[in-house]
């Protein structure tokens, strides 16, 4: 038995050989399918990873611009609006909804941002001064948050794909390195057992036929001896000899028939 893979506990029969062959075929198809899935996912994964890298850099820039626009606000308002903003926040205007995308049978959620209409907590903030800056700052931040949401979907997809790819690869490897060799081993085993049986049977039959040949030879010898005896007797008593031959003819055909039968059985 080769390596640690072992083989399955089956009786080495022709039926289980058929089963194993089917199984091997199935495993090979499954393997190639999973392999393709894993490749598709990995492709996607690499793309996402690259996009995450890009998006993170972009986020750095976007957030910087946003922070700067907040600085403009504090310049224009001439004071701190942080507390007021925190207190007047009530309803989220900016929300996300989850969508799903199917990549090779894996459901990847992606977030989509939308703004809830009619919710505006800060409409009058900066009424006296700085209103325009605040408005602009809100837009800048809203855009920044959109980038963030995009990044968040990428990141979630990244985590899920990472997980799924691990699972798929584990399966691929399991099939490749365990199931297929094992099934192959089993098939080999069954084949070797069957061959063994064949050989045994062949040997047995050879023995049987040998024995039969011996028997036939012995019988022939006996008949020959009998014939000689009869010929001798006929020479001594011709009358008896003229009666005897037909009977002997029949007997000899019978013996031949038996031999033929034996051959058929071989």
């Amino acid at each position, binding site marked *: 038995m080769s390596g640690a893979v072992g083989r399955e506990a089956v009786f080495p029969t022709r039926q289980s050989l058929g089963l194993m062959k089917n199984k091997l075929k199935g495993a090979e198809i499954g393997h190639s399918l999973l392999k393709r899935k894993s490749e598709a996912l990995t492709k996607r994964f690499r793309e996402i*990873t690259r996009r*995450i*890298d890009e998006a*993170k*850099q972009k*986020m*750095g820039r976007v*957030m*910087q611009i*946003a*922070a700067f*626009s*907040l*600085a403009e606000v504090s310049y224009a308002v001439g004071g701190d*609006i*942080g507390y007021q*903003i*925190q207190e007047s*926040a*009530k*309803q*989220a*205007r*900016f*929300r*996300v*909804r*989850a969508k*799903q995308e199917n990549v090779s049978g*894996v*459901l990847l*959620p992606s*977030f989509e941002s939308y*703004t809830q209409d009619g*919710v505006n*907590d*800060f409409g009058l903030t900066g009424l006296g001064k700085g209103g325009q800056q*605040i408005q602009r*700052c*809100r837009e800048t*931040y*809203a855009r*920044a*948050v959109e980038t*963030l*949401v995009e*990044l*968040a*979907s990428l*990141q*979630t997809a*990244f*985590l*899920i794909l*990472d*997980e799924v790819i691990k699972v798929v690869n584990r399966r691929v490897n399991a099939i490749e390195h365990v199931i297929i060799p094992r099934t192959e081993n089993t098939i080999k085993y069954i084949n070797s057992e069957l061959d063994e049986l064949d050989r045994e049977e062949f040997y047995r039959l050879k023995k049987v036929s040998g024995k039969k040949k011996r028997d036939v030879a012995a019988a022939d010898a006996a008949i020959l001896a009998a014939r000689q005896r009869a010929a001798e007797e006929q020479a001594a008593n011709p009358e008896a000899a003229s009666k005897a031959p037909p009977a002997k003819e029949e007997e000899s055909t019978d013996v031949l028939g038996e031999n033929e039968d034996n051959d058929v059985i071989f």
Partner: protein
Amino acid sequence: MAASAASSKDRQFLAVIGDEDSVTGLLLAGIGHVSDGPDADKNFLVVDSTTETSKIEEHFQKFTQDRKDIAVLLINQHIAERIRHRVDAFTDPFPAILEIPSKDHPYDPEKDSVLKRVRRLFGE
């Protein structure tokens, strides 16, 4: 997969743990949501130098585990540094945790939990 897909449906808010400026800006964008009732539940936390780390952890726990309506948690990177072990330990897909730069702390990709994983996968 099915379970996480179902639970992602009702996640519609963003949450933020950040310094005052970051929170203010993000609130201006309109992500702030305060539930009604006496013990109003906010989806943002302002952290300054006097904020206890335990408080940050508590909110992190609340936003990531207890609340089921949060899709994305934004956290300033320098604050994430303070509770790095918690952030690194959190690997669920939901809510997505996003480390964002703050005004005074420019973004450092080396410290980002997710980017660290990205880098590791590519063996860099």
